[in-house]
């Protein structure tokens, strides 16, 4: 009797010890994970939480970076290399225009930690944005660059539908046009990005599924992601070969593969980096850096109806014959 009671007691003690050891170790692990998570909140499925609300982006693409509003904007001749033609793609080795360059430099000067106002940024927190290649020279394959320049020469006036910018056609822009506003929604195993511009949605699956079959081609590509600490890494394939990087790089081919890194640096800032791998046009991948910041003055995404009632194509290409 005594011995039985003893055995029961021992068992109970052992079980309690084991349980407390396990929970202590789980607690320690959770604490360690929390420390790396830099006190960011978590979603129920353990993802670092990207704040609700509206976000803007800077540093990526060309069209929405102010070039179109440049006072001396003369789009008539894309090869005109004079400073008065900020959209020139002419003779520069990198093919990028001077406004693009100037604008990005100005950006890097002005940008503080999570703010784009005119106050000087705190030292050490500036972030250079835009094309992160030495001298912003892109590793063009010569043939591809020549083809691009020949293409651009036919864009204004557009010598056919394929020479009209996707923006003017109201198409989904791919990953590089449109700098917000955006919203990030996180559900179990997914991150969903909503865009006001062209009302597109990016569905980023985190469940380790394979990419879509290669014959499926999409404007926005097929995105598979994973979290590495506080960084959402997104691998995107299945592009359709007709979306642009910017006005100066009017198309990326369907061989395009992008790797994006969204790093949550604090509750209001996501450092963004994208590696652009288009082996049909470039000898190696190249990188662009940008940043998403919370836009607290924007309460919600509104409607961006573009094609509805648009006469842009008629103006560019003429009135289609009536059947």
């Amino acid at each position, binding site marked *: 009797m005594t011995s039985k009671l003893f055995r029961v007691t021992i068992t109970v003690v052992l079980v309690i010890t084991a349980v407390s050891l396990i929970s202590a170790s789980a607690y320690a692990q959770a604490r360690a994970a929390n420390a790396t998570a830099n006190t960011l909140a978590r979603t129920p499925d353990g993802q670092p939480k990207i704040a609700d609300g509206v976000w803007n982006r800077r540093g990526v693409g060309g069209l929405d970076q102010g070039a179109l509003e440049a006072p001396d904007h003369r789009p008539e001749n894309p090869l005109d290399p004079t400073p008065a033609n900020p959209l020139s793609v002419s003779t520069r080795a990198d093919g990028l225009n001077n406004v693009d360059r100037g604008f990005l430099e100005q950006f890097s000067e002005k940008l503080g930690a999570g703010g784009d106002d005119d106050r000087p940024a705190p030292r050490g927190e500036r972030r250079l944005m835009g094309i992160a290649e030495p001298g912003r020279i892109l590793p063009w394959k010569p043939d591809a660059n020549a083809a691009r320049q020949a293409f651009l020469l036919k864009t204004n006036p557009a010598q056919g539908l394929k020479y009209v910018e996707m923006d003017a056609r109201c198409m989904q822009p791919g990953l590089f046009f449109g700098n917000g506003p955006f919203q990030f929604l996180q559900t179990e195993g997914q991150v969903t990005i909503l865009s006001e511009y062209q009302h597109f949605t990016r569905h980023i699956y985190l469940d380790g599924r394979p990419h879509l079959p290669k014959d499926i081609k999409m404007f926005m590509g097929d995105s598979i992601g994973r979290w590495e600490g506080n960084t959402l890494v997104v691998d995107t394939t299945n592009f359709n070969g007709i979306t642009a990087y910017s006005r100066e790089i009017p198309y990326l081919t369907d061989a395009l593969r992008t790797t994006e890194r969204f790093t949550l640096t604090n509750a209001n800032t996501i450092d963004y980096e994208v590696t652009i791998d288009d082996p049909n046009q470039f000898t190696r991948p190249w990188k662009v850096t940008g940043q998403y910041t919370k836009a607290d003055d924007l309460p919600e995404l509104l409607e961006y109806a573009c*094609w509805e009632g648009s006469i842009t194509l008629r103006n560019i290409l003429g009135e289609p014959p009536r059947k």
Partner: protein
Amino acid sequence: MKKHTGFVTSAVIMLCILWLAEISAAAQAAQRRIAGKPDLNGIWQVLNSASWNIQDHNGELGVPPALGVVEGNEIPYRPEAVAKKQENYGKRATADPTEANCYLPGVPRITYMPFPFKITHTPNNIAISYEFNHTLRPIPLDGSPHPETPEENWMGISRGRWEGDTLVVDVRNFNDQTWFDHAGNYHSEQLRVTERYTLMDPDHIMYEATIEDPKVFTRPWKMSMPLYRRKDPNARLLEYECTYYLQEKIYKDAPFFR
């Protein structure tokens, strides 16, 4: 005899256990909740031909026949509003804003376009992303009022709230440009739509849309239809870029003035 009874009894017990297991699994799935509300995440689609005609209709070339989705099958047009519906019907091949022109379909038509859509549901937000022309509806659940704006929208402005386990979406600020279907049923800018999404079981939502528009109709009227969860193991939202296909067709031989 006794042996038989024993066999039958155990078979019945086994079946009961299996049945209980099944309903408990279903109940568990049905109980997936987000902030206490039924989890609506997933890819959904209607199984009807309401986008061609929301009322009873026979088959035509390219139009599947169907019984209507309108309660009572009657749309209470004001007497002076009937003529425009008939005019729309007559020119539907070219004038249907959605089918012929690839414009945003409005609400509730976007729901019963014959394409899948994906609901993204978090504690504070619902977004519905539709395969048709990458239409997107953000639906805040934060209790904020509709913006005081005179701006008119193709898809309206949506505000969601929960009534028990039913998601109720109040949609306002519409323009007068969209049609309810290819048959030319229409509305004015005074349209107000109240949608109700009720999860019946893990794979079915009962969808109701109440239509109010005192300029065009004599009373509110209602459509309802089930939404089916896409169960294909590889179900995904792809891209149906209506506008792109249409432009490629219309402007194939452009430019036209040179």
